[in-house]
Structure formats: C-alpha cells, structure tokens
C-alpha cells in the first residue's frame, strides 16, 4: 500500500475512532544528542520549569517523560504533550559507564535500565503525531541509528523536523546534517544556550499544522 494511502487511512481512522485531541510531540535521537536539554529549554520557555535531569554520561534519560506544553505565536496557540524519550542505541556496555566514573553497581543498573529505555522509546513511536529528531551537530550524522529512526517515522507517515543541536560548539557542522538528510528541514539550535529557538518554534507550528 502506498505511503499516501496509508497516511490517509491512518488519519481517517484516528478521526473516526480515536477522537483524540491530544497531540504527542516526541523528541527522538541517539543518546547525548540533547533531547532532555531541548525538553528543558521548551518547558523553561513556556512553563518556567525544567522537565528532566541531564548528564554528560549517556543514557541519563531511561524512561519516557511526558509534559503538557502550550506555546504561542501571535494569536496562534499550540498545545501538545512533549514526550522526552530515552536515546536509541544498538549497544549498551556497562563498562562504558564504569569508564565514565560510575560505581559498578550503579553502572550495571544504568545499563539494565537503559536497555529497557531503548525498547520503550521504539514502542512509543506508534503513539507519536510528530517528532523532533535531535542530533548532535558535532557528530557524524551517517549512523544507522539515525537512519533507522527516520526510516521508521517515514514508514508511519509521522511528520519530522531534524534539529542539529550544540551549534554553540566549534565542531558543529550543520551543512553535513543537511547533506545527510536532504529531504527534511534541518535547523540548528543550542538547546543549552537557547540559540535558534525562535526559528525552532516557528518550524514547530509548521510541523503540526
């Protein structure tokens, strides 16, 4: 079945049976791309409070976090559930957490929880209405995890916005991200410092219109 027809049927089914007014906006990506930092930036901007804890050690977010947010642009208003998801990875080695300085017991616990987090993040793809793919703009975008995430969103006809985060760092290369995913809108932000957020909110309105 063609993607267009599948998308049409999906919308029709939702409209007829689901009667769901809530909009789930997911933050997806590999670990340490800055999903939670972006979630915190959004909730700080619009709710005045942070949403989750961040850490330089990967897999700090190991559970799905959800918060209702309302953003405004002129007379327009957008209400959605912001869904911060654990980073998707193909490997989780507890020894990496040991190297990052965690005690053994904590490293093992983190690894165990992180594997469950990856599974949950993938399962939650079916609940999303739109997704922001958060990628670290200083890193190589041509990874299979990135391609798998985007491929699965495409297959479900879920609108995608790609965000290249950490543009405050010298190594950031937004052009490379744009070349890797030419079929999508790619915008650069620094979730940590708030750079590029006006453009981000502007694109968010377009994404879920």
């Amino acid at each position, binding site marked *: 079945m063609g993607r267009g027809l599948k998308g049409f049927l999906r919308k029709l089914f939702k409209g007829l049976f689901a009667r769901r007014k809530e909009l789930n906006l997911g933050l997806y990506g590999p670990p340490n791309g800055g999903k939670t930092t972006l979630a915190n930036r959004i909730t700080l901007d619009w709710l005045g409070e942070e949403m989750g804890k961040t850490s330089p050690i990967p897999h700090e977010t190991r559970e799905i976090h959800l918060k209702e947010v309302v953003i405004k642009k002129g007379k327009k208003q957008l209400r959605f559930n912001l869904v911060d998801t654990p980073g998707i*990875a*193909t490997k989780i080695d507890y020894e990496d957490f040991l190297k990052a300085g965690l005690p053994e017991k904590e490293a093992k616990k983190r690894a165990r929880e992180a594997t469950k987090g990856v599974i949950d993040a993938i399962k939650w793809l079916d609940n999303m209405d739109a997704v922001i793919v958060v990628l670290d703009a200083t890193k190589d975008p041509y990874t299979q995890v990135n391609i798998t995430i985007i491929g*699965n969103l495409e297959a479900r006809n879920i609108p995608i916005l790609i965000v290249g985060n950490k543009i405050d760092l010298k190594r950031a290369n937004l052009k490379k991200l744009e070349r890797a995913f030419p079929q999508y809108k790619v915008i650069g932000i620094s979730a940590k410092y708030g750079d590029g957020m006006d453009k981000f909110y502007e694109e968010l309105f377009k994404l879920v219109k």
Partner: protein
Amino acid sequence: MSPRKNTIEIQVLSMKELKGLSHVARVHKILNMVKEQRILLLDGNLEPSEEAELIKDTMKQVDRKFPGIEIGVLRIGEKDRTIGTRIREFFEKLLFGHKKGITIIGPANIVREIKQDPDKAILLMELKK
C-alpha cells in the same frame, strides 16, 4: 557452529536465505548468528521496521558478554536516482523483498564502530589479544 576462539568469522548471507521468513524470524536468525560472534554481510537492506525490531530484540539480550550490535548499511545507487532506476528498484523490491545495498551487522564487542557515508562503509574492529 560457533567460530573458533580467537578467530573472527565473516559470513556473507544472501537475502534469499531470509526470504519467506516472517520479520520476527528474520530478526531472530540474524541476531542468533551475530550472538555467535559472527559478522554478517547481507546483500540487501532490512526494512526500517525490521531494523527497529532488531534493536529491540538486541536490547532484550544485552548482558555482560553481549553488549549489543553494530549495524551499517551501504545503500547502492542511493544518490542521483533517475525515475527509471526508481521503477526498477520498485519491481526488485516487489520480487525479491529487499532494496539494493549491503548490510553489515556485527557483535559490538568485536565491531567497535561502522563508519558510513553514502559511498562507503568502514568497519573498525577490536582485536583482543
């Protein structure tokens, strides 16, 4: 049969071997081979849903000995595809059930990283003494 100790086995697997299997069975077969410390080269691509299933199943099996997998896909002819190429690919996919390309999957305790870009894939392996 698992590879001998201190050896690395690279197995080239035709997608025809996986044809007729359900998505779950395909993923199961691939993961079992990789868990036996083999690096697989498949002459095709998995569907995005199969890749997601592979990641989920991998996560369920992560333990001290098996930290997960590395996966990379070299998509042949992805760039500059003409309408004719796209039509041919459509029928190839219809007939053979997969897209053109090479998929590399290996255990993460051996394959440290797969660097990929549209034109090449580089396998970085950890050789333990």
